């Protein structure tokens, strides 16, 4: 750890002074302080420099890249540094002995990695991996720190955040898309035809872009939600929470801001409307859940503040009957509240992994929880215990191919017409989990849909198992069930936004 010297003296380090002749100005983008009293700086000239903290003198300078070095992270042992640059490359610097077995050590640029196309804005250094973030997030295991080849030794790449960016008004058939600084509300198109598997049906009504709502100021939108009936819309930025009333009259759509929204302590991490669109749950960063009652024609009042979570609440799941509310806090504890008498009901047994999605079954009030390590559990809220199916699943264990997926389940929903169905999705697959079918073991093919489709009806029965997986839509941003036989799926092709990005660095190339 670093301690500051008692007299608050200021040492000014002129990073620029050695390159005074250069016309460009040098910007220091990142600094780190080592326990030895060395300041490490990363600057726009692509240099990583080591300075004596007290003297302000330059100890070492490494030009790691011809473009700017933007981010910096030091390992806990302070023997390795990862640097992110504006060309998308990351570099590792290691403190190595000058001679083999010698005591004198120097910083040496060891490994370059190129996993990003654009700025690497943030880097982190875990004991066994380098983590870099730009347009995508990449976890690069350090092979010398990984004991054996296996699941942990694999490079991981994440393009989308592991949270919901789309919300769906089931009844009104609207979709709300959350962008960094605006929201878009769309009405889904429809068809009157039916067809066979894989067929594209002609549309009788085109999808309609109803409204675009720009957030004021420079702040990014944290979370947003549209009510199931489609008449309420809320979003929150880092400092403010906004609620709107949506009115569809004929073809036109009007938005009216709800005045006098109760003062909440922002930011809200998650917004969730109740199934009957009568109330709104706001998960706060302070660990409480605010229950707002929505009033006609366009007002709201604070009904209750549910406390109990020690850290920020980041996921909410209300039950369809309005009886229960499950809230996940940053310490991964899941609290269940009784909304009828505004009481804390119970805490789901803690598991040592983050909760990535959860939902309450509309008819059984069973809470289905997906963890970031791909485990699934089902917890009966009325009985305050895991269900028999959940225990069976735990003792049997999930299929290896399921457990080794990269991206966590981000949304869970149910089929109201078939209580045995649980619908889940991550970035690469959507899955109908049919509890009435046997669980697959490792020897069977997990993703067997294409195989099943080739089999005659009679032969399928032997091959069926609980996980019905469809990988047709990738990358999958959102999936919800509108009604019994209508599923809405939102795909976000990576190319769509990659092509919109500017060139990472303007470079002159010969011959171009």
């Amino acid at each position, binding site marked *: 750890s670093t301690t500051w010297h008692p007299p608050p003296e200021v040492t000014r380090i002129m990073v620029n002074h050695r390159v005074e002749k250069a016309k460009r100005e040098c910007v220091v983008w990142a600094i780190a302080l080592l326990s030895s009293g060395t300041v490490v700086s990363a600057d726009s000239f692509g240099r990583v420099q080591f300075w004596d903290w007290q003297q302000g003198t330059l100890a070492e300078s490494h030009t790691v890249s011809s473009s700017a070095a933007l981010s910096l992270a030091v390992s806990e042992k302070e023997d390795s540094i990862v640097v992110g640059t504006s060309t998308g490359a990351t570099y590792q610097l290691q403190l190595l002995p000058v001679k083999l077995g010698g005591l004198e050590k120097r910083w040496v640029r060891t490994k370059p990695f190129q996993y990003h196309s654009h700025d690497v804005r943030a880097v982190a250094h875990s004991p066994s991996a380098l983590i870099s973030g730009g347009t995508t997030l990449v976890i690069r295991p350090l092979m010398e720190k990984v004991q054996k080849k296996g699941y942990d030794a694999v490079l991981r790449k994440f393009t989308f955040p592991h949270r919901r960016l789309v919300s769906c008004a089931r009844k009104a058939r609207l979709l709300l898309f959350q962008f960094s600084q605006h929201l878009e509300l769309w009405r889904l198109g*429809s068809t009157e035809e039916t067809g*066979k*598997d894989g*067929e594209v049906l002609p*549309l009788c009504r085109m999808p309609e872009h109803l409204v675009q709502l720009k957030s004021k100021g420079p702040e990014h939108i944290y979370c947003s939600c549209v009510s199931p009936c489609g008449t309420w819309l809320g979003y929150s930025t880092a400092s403010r929470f906004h609620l709107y009333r949506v009115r569809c009259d004929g073809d036109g759509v009007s938005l009216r801001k709800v005045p006098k929204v109760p003062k909440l302590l922002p930011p809200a991490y998650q917004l969730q409307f109740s199934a009957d669109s009568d109330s709104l749950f706001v998960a706060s960063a302070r660990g409480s859940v605010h229950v707002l009652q929505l009033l006609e024609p366009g007002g709201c009042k604070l009904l209750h503040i549910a406390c109990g979570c020690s850290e920020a609440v980041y996921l909410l799941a209300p039950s369809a009957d309005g009886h229960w509310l499950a809230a996940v806090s940053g310490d991964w504890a899941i609290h269940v509240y009784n909304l009828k008498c505004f009481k804390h009901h119970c805490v789901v047994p803690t598991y040592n992994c983050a909760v990535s999605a959860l939902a309450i079954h509309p008819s059984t009030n069973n809470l289905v929880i997906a963890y970031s390590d791909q485990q699934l559990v089902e917890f009966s809220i009325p009985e305050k215990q895991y269900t028999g199916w959940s225990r069976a699943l735990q003792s049997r264990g999930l299929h290896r191919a399921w457990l080794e997926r990269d991206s966590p389940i981000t949304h869970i929903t149910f089929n109201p017409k078939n209580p045995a169905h649980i619908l889940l999705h991550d970035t690469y697959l959507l899955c109908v989990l049919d509890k009435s079918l046997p669980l697959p073991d490792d020897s069977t093919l997990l993703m067997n*849909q294409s195989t099943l489709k080739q089999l005659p009806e009679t032969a399928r029965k032997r091959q069926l198992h609980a996980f019905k997986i469809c990988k047709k839509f990738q990358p999958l941003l959102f999936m919800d069930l509108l009604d019994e036989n209508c599923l809405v799926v939102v795909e976000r092709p990576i*190319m769509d936004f990659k092509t919109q990005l500017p060139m990472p660095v303007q470079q002159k190339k010969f011959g171009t």
Partner: protein
Amino acid sequence: LTCPVVCNFETHEYIAVHDDKVLRIWKNEDINLDKAFKATLSADVYRIHSLPNGGPVVLFKGGGVRTLDVLLEAPQQEIENVISDEVIRYIPVLILLSAFTAFCSFWMFFCHILSKFFSTKTHCERGFFFLSGSNDSVYQVLIPLQQDTEEEEAEKEEEILSRSLLLNLSVSGSVLKGTSLVVLDKDHVAVLGSLAAPGKEPRECLTIWNTKFQTLQTSKELPLGTTGQLWCYEEKFFLTHGKVLTVIMYKCETSSLAAAVGKLKDSQTPGKNLFYNYSEKILAVLKPVPCVSELHSICLFQDASTYVLESELRQLMAKAPTPDLQATIGCVVTALTDRCKTNPKYYPKNFLLQIVETRDLSYSLCPDLMAVALEKKDVQLLQICLQRFPDIPEEITYACLEAFLSISEAHLQSEDVNLDSVICYIDVEFDNKEVKTEIVENGFNAEMDQDMCDTKIPKKTQSRSDGESCPVGPQKAALLNAVLHSAYTETFLLPHLKNLPAQQAILFLRYLYYLYVKCSEKVNTTLPGIRSPTINQIMDWMCLLLDAHFTVIVMLPEAKELLASLHKFVRAQVRFYSELNKIEGSLQELQRLNHLRDSQTYSIEVLEII
């Protein structure tokens, strides 16, 4: 190498001897033995022993003993011949008996020789020897083993060691002629030897004796004979029994009189027996030595009525799997197959299927099973055997192949063959053709290469042999896949494969060609489905078949067409892949240019989830 390699725990070096006299020493990081340290000795080495808290000791064939340090100082030093007429038959075993006293650690040398051949210098303070002397008794010889001065040592070499009788190896009149002896702890010794009773055949057996109370604790007969050697490591005996390396676990408890006279049960009876078959290619094959009570039921299997037998079998199958039961089931299967052989009408198909499916049997555990199944043409059982047995001899594999190829498709229709391996790729004539939506990702078009082909091939045969339709039915294909999946050694399989009739060879080749084409349709060149053959298995069998039938295939006119199209296909594949490499480069460039995806941004599609 002429003796086992040992590790010097002090220096973490390894010591080996080759050509009896050449000593090699190397460390972990050394890769090449030829470059390791080398010392040539003056006498033949019998064994090297590594002592956990001392340097290694080298025992020479003449009986002389030197520590490695002494030997390395002067490798060519003269080694005395202590024993002249006797050959060392028993390997001296060194066991650390740390539990004996708190202060001393002892090294025990066991040897058949009663003479004074030890001139060893060890780091132990005191020690003693057990000697299985005149074959029917065990003696204890105490010798001091201090770190002596030179003079004292010289004296000691002259000293005749006193011995005391420790144990008489006699069991109710019969005498145990011990061949090997292992000390288990301070009160127990294990002796491997033959028990000779007057007027009876000598029987080999393993015995455990309590030296304190002079009692035989337990014995185990080894009717198949041993090599007379017994090793002991980590509470397990290792001995050869017949053609099998047998591992017997044991447990010695502190000896008490009650235990010695047998009042305490289960104190040190040999535990589980594990049998490792080392005569076959594959290790960890279990061999049966059933318990006596179960032997009774095995007799039953040979002549009881079907009903009694079935209920008996059900009981047996219901038991929890243990290695013993495993062996018993092997015996049961053998008994059943014996019965099948004597009574041609008798064939408990369902039971055999159930046993093979639920138990991890091996070929060597029930060697006649597959032969009987072949005779009965039970393809279902044969398929499961091929899938489950890891050690099928090539001869049987070949017999299965021939049987599968010769059985008519009509006959196979009625058989319940597991189609898992073919169902995903074979062209089954479905009513609904549109169901097959899989895109041919790597669609090679044979016509593309038409002009390059020198031989004229009638259009009709080409489309047939092109792999467009499978030359065999799905049942036969599934059976052949089971053959393709079984392990084999080329040299052993090839002579059998030569016997395959030409027509069957062509059919098989045609099927292999079909599989190869099917594989090549996929980008990853793997067939979908469970236990479907891999491209390497297909290619290996194809090469093997061509090797075996080259002369025949060249002569047959219909084979010529097949060969020509096969040749053409392979050549086209090679060309195709080289073209792919070029395309890959272009695609990478294109990818950088990032064309906007020309797809519908909104659509309503039908998605069927089964």
